[in-house]
C-alpha cells in the first residue's frame, strides 16, 4: 500500500501528470496576457516525449557519469520533497516533527544540481548560467526561509501537522501572515528561476544558462524537474499559508487543486507582467527589501505569540 502511494498518489505519477497540467496552465495564462491564443493542451506532453526521442550529445571533455546523473538527482530531490508535503489531509505520507525544515532543504538540492550541471558542462554560457544560479540561490533562499518559517513560529511547531492544527483553531491568525505570503511568492519566483528573476537562464543573453549543453533525454528530465518544482513549491506554499483541509477526500483534493492553481496563477501573472532584472539587482532587491520585511514579520509574530 505504501509503495502504491509513493508511486501513484501522492507520488510519482500524480506529480508527473499534475506538473504537465500546471505547465500548460502557466503557459496559457502567459499567452493570454500577451494577447495570444497559446499552446494546445497536449503541448507539455509533446515537448517531453519529443525530447525523449532525440539524440543525447555529451561534450567530449565532460564527465559522462555526472553529466547523466545530475538530472536524476534533481528530480529525485523534488519527488522526495513532494512526499513530505501534506496535500489532502493535515498529515503527509510520512509526517514527523520538523518536516517543514527537511522539505526546505530538499528543495535546495535541485538548484545545486542546476549549478553543478552548468559548471561541469565546461561551456562559457553554461558556466555563466551556473554562477548566476548560485548567486541567485544566496539572494532568495534567506527571504524564502524567513517567510515560510514565520507562520511556523506563530504556530509554535516545525511540522505541517502542527501548523495546520494551530491555524484551524485560530483562522484569524492567517491574516497576520499576509506580508510573509507576499515575500514567499516573490522568493518562489526566484527559486523557480522565472521572470523577473530568470537571469540564470536568460535566453537573450546567455543562450540557455546552465542547460545550454544538455540535449535529448537529459534535457527532458531537467525540464521535467523544473515543472515538478513548480508543483512542489505551489503545494508547499499552500500547505504553509492555506493549511485547511476537508474531512472528505474528494472535497479535500479539489480544495488542494484550487489552492495550487491559485498560487500558480499569481506566479504566471508575475511572469507575464515583469521584465528581467540583472543579477546584482536581484541580490540588492532580495537583501534590501525582502529580508527587511521578513525580519519585521518574524518580530511581529514573536510579539503576537507572546501577547496571546
Amino acid at each position, binding site marked *: 500500500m505504501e509503495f502504491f502511494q509513493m508511486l501513484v498518489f501522492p507520488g510519482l505519477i500524480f506529480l508527473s501528470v499534475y506538473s504537465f497540467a500546471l505547465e500548460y496552465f502557466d503557459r496559457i495564462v502567459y499567452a493570454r496576457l*500577451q494577447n*495570444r491564443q497559446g*499552446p494546445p493542451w497536449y503541448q507539455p506532453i509533446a515537448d517531453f516525449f519529443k525530447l525523449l526521442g532525440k539524440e543525447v550529445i555529451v561534450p567530449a571533455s565532460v564527465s559522462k557519469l555526472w553529466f547523466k546523473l545530475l538530472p536524476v538527482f534533481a528530480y529525485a530531490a523534488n519527488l522526495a520533497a513532494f512526499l513530505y508535503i501534506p496535500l489532502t489531509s493535515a498529515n503527509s505520507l510520512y509526517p514527523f516533527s520538523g518536516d517543514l525544515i527537511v522539505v526546505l532543504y530538499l528543495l535546495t538540492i535541485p538548484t545545486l544540481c542546476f549549478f553543478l550541471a552548468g559548471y561541469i558542462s565546461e561551456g562559457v554560457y553554461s558556466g555563466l548560467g551556473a554562477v548566476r544560479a548560485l548567486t541567485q540561490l544566496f539572494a532568495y533562499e534567506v527571504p524564502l526561509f524567513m517567510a515560510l518559517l514565520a507562520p511556523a513560529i506563530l504556530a509554535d511547531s516545525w511540522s505541517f501537522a502542527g501548523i495546520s492544527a494551530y491555524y484551524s483553531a485560530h483562522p484569524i491568525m492567517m491574516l497576520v501572515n499576509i506580508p510573509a505570503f507576499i515575500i514567499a511568492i516573490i522568493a518562489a519566483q526566484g527559486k523557480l528561476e522565472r521572470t523577473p528573476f530568470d537571469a540564470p537562464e536568460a*535566453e537573450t543573453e546567455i*543562450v540557455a544558462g546552465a542547460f545550454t*549543453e544538455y540535449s535529448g533525454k537529459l534535457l527532458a528530465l531537467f525540464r521535467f524537474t523544473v515543472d515538478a518544482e513548480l508543483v512542489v513549491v505551489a503545494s508547499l506554499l499552500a500547505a504553509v499559508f492555506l493549511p485547511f483541509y476537508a474531512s472528505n477526500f474528494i472535497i479535500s483534493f479539489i480544495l488542494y487543486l484550487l489552492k495550487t492553481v491559485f498560487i500558480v496563477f499569481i506566479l504566471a501573472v508575475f511572469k507575464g507582467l515583469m521584465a528581467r532584472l540583472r543579477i546584482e539587482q536581484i541580490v540588492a532587491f532580495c537583501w534590501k527589501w525582502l529580508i527587511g520585511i521578513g525580519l519585521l514579520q518574524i518580530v511581529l509574530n514573536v510579539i503576537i505569540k507572546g501577547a496571546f
Partner: protein
Amino acid sequence: MNPLKKLIKWAQRKSPWIIHFNAGACNGCDIEVVDALTPRFDLERFGVLQKGSPRHADVLVCTGAVTMQTADRLKNIYDQMAEPKFVVAVGTCACSGGVFGDCYCVKGGIDAVIPVSAYIPGCAARPEAIIDGVVKLLSTLEDKKLQPKNPIVINSEKELADMLDEAEAAEENTETENFEENKAKEDNENA
C-alpha cells in the same frame, strides 16, 4: 511499431523548436522570421518555440546566401544539433543564392553546405509563407522516415498570392468592422 515510438513520432510533429541563423542575409528575411514569432502570429499554437541553443532545437531556420565567412559556422551549428534535425531555407537568397549568387564571396544557397528539407522563397519571405512552410514540413513527415523524401517547396506563387489576398481581405474586414463599432460607440456616447 510499438506505442512509445508512435508517441515520440507524434510528439516530433507537434513540438518543433526552432533556432534562427543568419548566414549572410540582408536582414530583410530575419525581420520577417522575428515577425513570425510575435504574438500577432502566435507560433506557439503549433508548439513552435524559439531556442537559443542548437542542442535544444529541432529546426534550423536559415536566411540569406551562404558567404565564405559563415559557411564553417553554419556547418558547425548544424553538427551541434541533436538528431532528428531539419533545415528550412527562408528567402530567395537562402534557396539559391539569389541576386548575390554570383558574388566572389558567396558559396550559394544553404544547400551548398548542409541538406535542406524545405525551401521558402520570397524577397523577403512573408511570415505567412514561413509558417506555412514549417507546418507543411511537419505534416509531411511520415511515420517511417523522418526526413521527407523530396524537399518541400513553398513556391506555388498562385497559392501564396491567394493566401495573401485572403489575409489582406480579412484584415480589411476587421478594420472596417472595428471602425464601424467605434463609430457606433461614439454616436451612443454623443447621444
